[in-house]
């Protein structure tokens, strides 16, 4: 919504400062996006008086004028305007001034005659389209006076962000009402210059579907789409350009001036938020102007020159034979007001918001009218809009009112809401006196009836506030008008919660701290992105077509993070993220959400250091394995790591896979290193706290077993067999060394295991150890075909 500062001043009858308006409107809930000064570049223009006019010696159409610009010496000016007259005053631009159109004036010769400045037309100053000649100023002001001191046209346009629940703010009157609340003053409609003292009186109310006004049949045959229809017949108007003040008002808010009749309807829309339309009575068949349902396939050429095909769920305005407008959206060419028009039917109706929105979407056209009807106009304000529009037309186009009717088949009263004053105090935490509450509500246009018997106020809601429906809406309004910063502030007693975090939250903290301790950096990526797999869940209504899927895993977005770093020539990346993954299969078609941790490693293992002799080694697969084991121990403590074809996997106690680690397939640029990635699902249960077991008091004994292992026998499996065969005395088994050589055979290796023995209650004897070792060797030979390596 565009506002004109001067238009608001007409309502509030006081000088307004744009920056003050910005602050006040922000506090009232209508933030100003921009303040645009209008007519910039006019502050350098002054009044120039033409003293003499002489013909140009070398050109028939040019004149040489001597201009007094108030600086003593007369200026030599060559002027081509036909209306330049000695003794009159015009806007004058001196040498050095840049006109609004961008023309910079300099001293130069025109056909051999010196010209020191320029007498300006309205168009050259950006004040309109008139270019018949230079702008004559009927003023007493002395030459040299700034133009802006004589022409009160300086204005600012305020671009206000109006929320959809406040249609009343789409007109200057609504904004003036809000500002009057803020100033604590009153407001009234600006006077229309030249309006007759007795304008349009009361409209004739007809509670049927049709009426005849001035020989024209008007009405609504579709009360669901067009609730109320008012029409005024004006005869004998003279259509022409609007007076300057009216054109300036419209142009100040970005509307184009067309002619005095159309401008009058647009002015009322921008002032009172009632879209209106004027029809050329002579072009109406019937004559009739009636709202009805469209017939499927009917066509109409709207004012923008486009042929529109209508559907049966639209409301249209029609005369006796054809469609003359799409209800609430746009009028038609066939009855457009033109320079020849003398008789008018002016329509002001109320169209259903939902119907208007559907029609607008089906037709693919949004207009100032549809924007307002969609949000809801004041059903009870139509007669006032007609009165205002009639006054404007009579003042600017003449004519006389023949008849005015108000067709309202099903009249209704504005809604009434009851407000308990105690409830106001309870919700707002401040007991406002009843007269103050009343004052606020009256200021926004409510009618308030105090009912002291039951401590309630009966509040009649004005038609322009469809957002006020229940008691709580009124309380919110009272808080807004009182000013949120005017309520007392206090610190409420507060006690820190003593409840422990949820186990899953504790797990998340544990994983975060653990991986930060490993030297990784935590990343945050978006949970929406491209599809991870064909099974990914797609949003019904995504904001962008690329980020339309819920992620199943975190690793792909971390890999994209690696690519981002590579694209910025950052080679060493170590990231992790804790977040949610989404999969199909929840109840009611909802996704299953799991909390997961993922990490990526690439590039140097440690920062460069002089002891490295020129660069630390890069991460390898064993760094990944080590990090995977740490991550599984942190995130899913009961799970175990197993070798897998692609790398390693983690399985929980039920055998379900809860994590994996592998070298990623994306090829690094030549200067970068391979990428390793892992992802683990978080267990929702914390590991049991550590229980102390007594430190051994007896000595231990150990033996090294150098075993020959065949292809595909993992050390882990050997350890499992050794432990189970060795019996209770085995305290631990570790791998000490590994040896491979061609003499051992392909893929065969000798692995040295160190087995520790201990008896908790006594010193262990050699015979016990020997017996245990014998059992172990037998078991590994039988189960894994592993023998002691001899010599």
């Amino acid at each position, binding site marked *: 919504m565009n506002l004109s500062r001067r238009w608001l001043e007409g309502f509030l009858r006081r000088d307004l400062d744009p920056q003050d308006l910005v602050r006040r409107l922000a506090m009232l809930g209508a933030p100003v996006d921009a303040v645009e000064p209008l007519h910039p570049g006019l502050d350098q223009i002054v009044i120039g008086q033409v003293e003499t006019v002489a013909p140009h010696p070398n050109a028939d159409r040019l004149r040489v004028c001597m201009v007094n610009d108030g600086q003593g010496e007369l200026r030599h000016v060559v002027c081509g305007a036909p209306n330049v007259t000695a003794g009159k005053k015009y806007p004058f631009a001196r040498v050095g001034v840049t006109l609004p159109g961008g023309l910079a004036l300099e001293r130069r010769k025109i056909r051999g005659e010196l010209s020191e400045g320029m007498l300006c037309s309205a168009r050259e100053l950006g004040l309109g389209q008139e270019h018949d000649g230079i702008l004559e100023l009927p003023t007493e002001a002395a030459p040299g006076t700034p133009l802006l001191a004589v022409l009160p046209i300086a204005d600012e346009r305020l671009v206000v962000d109006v929320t959809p629940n406040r249609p009343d703010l789409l007109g200057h009157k609504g904004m003036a009402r809000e500002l009057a609340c803020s100033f604590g003053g009153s407001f009234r409609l600006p006077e229309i210059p030249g309006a007759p003292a007795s304008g349009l009186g009361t409209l004739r109310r007809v509670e049927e579907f049709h009426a005849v006004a001035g020989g024209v049949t008007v009405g609504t045959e579709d009360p669901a789409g067009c609730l109320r229809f008012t029409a005024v017949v004006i005869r004998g108007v003279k259509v022409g350009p609007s007076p300057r003040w009216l054109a300036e008002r419209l142009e100040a808010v970005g509307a184009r001036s067309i002619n005095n009749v159309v401008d009058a309807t647009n002015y009322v829309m921008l002032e009172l938020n009632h879209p209106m339309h004027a029809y050329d009575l002579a072009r109406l068949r019937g004559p009739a102007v009636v709202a009805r349902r469209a017939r499927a396939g009917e066509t109409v050429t709207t004012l923008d020159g486009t042929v529109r095909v209508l559907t049966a769920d639209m409301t249209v305005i029609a005369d006796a034979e054809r469609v003359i407008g799409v209800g609430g959206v746009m009028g038609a060419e066939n009855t457009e007001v033109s320079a020849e028009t003398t008789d008018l039917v002016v329509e002001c109706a109320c169209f259903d918001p939902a119907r208007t929105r559907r029609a607008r979407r089906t037709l693919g056209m949004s207009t100032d009218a549809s924007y307002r009807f969609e949000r809801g106009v004041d059903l009870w304000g139509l007669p006032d809009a007609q009165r205002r529009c009639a006054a404007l037309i009579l003042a600017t186009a003449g004519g006389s009112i023949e008849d005015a009717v108000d067709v309202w088949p099903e009249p209704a009263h504005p809604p009434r809401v009851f407000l308990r004053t105690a409830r106001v105090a*309870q*919700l707002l935490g401040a007991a406002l006196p009843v007269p103050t509450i009343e004052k606020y509500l009256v200021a926004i246009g409510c009618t308030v009836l105090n009912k002291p018997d039951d401590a309630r106020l009966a509040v009649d809601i004005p038609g322009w506030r469809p957002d006020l429906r229940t008691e*709580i809406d009124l309380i919110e309004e009272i808080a807004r008008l009182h000013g949120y910063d005017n309520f007392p502030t206090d610190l409420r007693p507060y006690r820190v919660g003593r409840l422990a975090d949820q186990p899953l939250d504790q797990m998340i903290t544990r994983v975060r701290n653990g991986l*930060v301790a490993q*030297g*990784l*950096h*935590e*990343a*945050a*990526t*978006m949970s929406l992105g491209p599809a991870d797999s064909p099974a990914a869940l797609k949003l019904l209504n995504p904001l962008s077509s690329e980020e339309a899927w819920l992620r199943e895993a975190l690793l792909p977005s*971390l890999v*994209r*993070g*690696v690519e*981002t*770093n590579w694209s*910025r*020539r*950052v*080679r*060493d*990346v*170590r*990231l992790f993220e804790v977040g949610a993954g989404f999969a199909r299969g929840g109840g009611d078609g909802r996704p299953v959400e799991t909390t997961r941790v993922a990490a990526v490693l690439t*590039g*140097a293992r*440690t*920062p*460069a250091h002089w002891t490295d002799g020129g660069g630390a080694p890069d991460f390898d697969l064993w760094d990944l394995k080590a990090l995977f084991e740490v991550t599984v121990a942190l995130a899913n403590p009961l799970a175990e790591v197993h070798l897998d074809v692609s790398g390693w996997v983690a399985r929980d106690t039920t055998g379900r896979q809860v994590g994996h680690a592998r070298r990623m397939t994306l090829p690094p640029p030549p200067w970068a290193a391979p990428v390793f990635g892992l992802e683990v699902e978080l267990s929702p249960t914390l590991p049991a706290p550590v229980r102390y077991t007594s430190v051994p008091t007896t000595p231990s004994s150990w033996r090294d077993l150098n075993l020959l292992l065949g292809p595909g026998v993992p050390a882990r499996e050997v350890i499992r067999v050794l432990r189970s065969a060795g019996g209770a005395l085995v305290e631990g088994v570790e791998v000490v060394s590994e040896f491979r050589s061609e003499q051992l055979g392909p893929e065969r290796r000798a692995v040295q295991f160190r087995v520790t023995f201990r008896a908790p209650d006594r010193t262990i004897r050699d015979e016990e150890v020997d017996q245990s070792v014998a059992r172990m060797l037998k078991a590994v030979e039988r189960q894994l075909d592993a023998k002691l390596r001899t010599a």
Partner: protein
Amino acid sequence: MDVSCGVCGGAGCPACKGTGWMEILGAGMVHPTVLENCGLDAERFTGFAFGMGPGRIAMNRFGITDIRLLYESDMRFLAQFAEPPGRRAVEPSA
């Protein structure tokens, strides 16, 4: 709810679109219908609602000028927030 912009100290900058203020969270009172739908007696209970996003708060606290930096995984950005300060596990190479 707006707070004064921590990037420019309220003077106006691109992060606050020149206003000197930054919206960090939506806040307000809970609508009685919401309370009723949660099974609470709205005549007895009132509530405050806050919708906090860590991004805006982090911008304010650390003087971050572009919110997208938080979600790009750029090591040169993330490494600035290493704990303890100054400890860089991997020196970013650029």
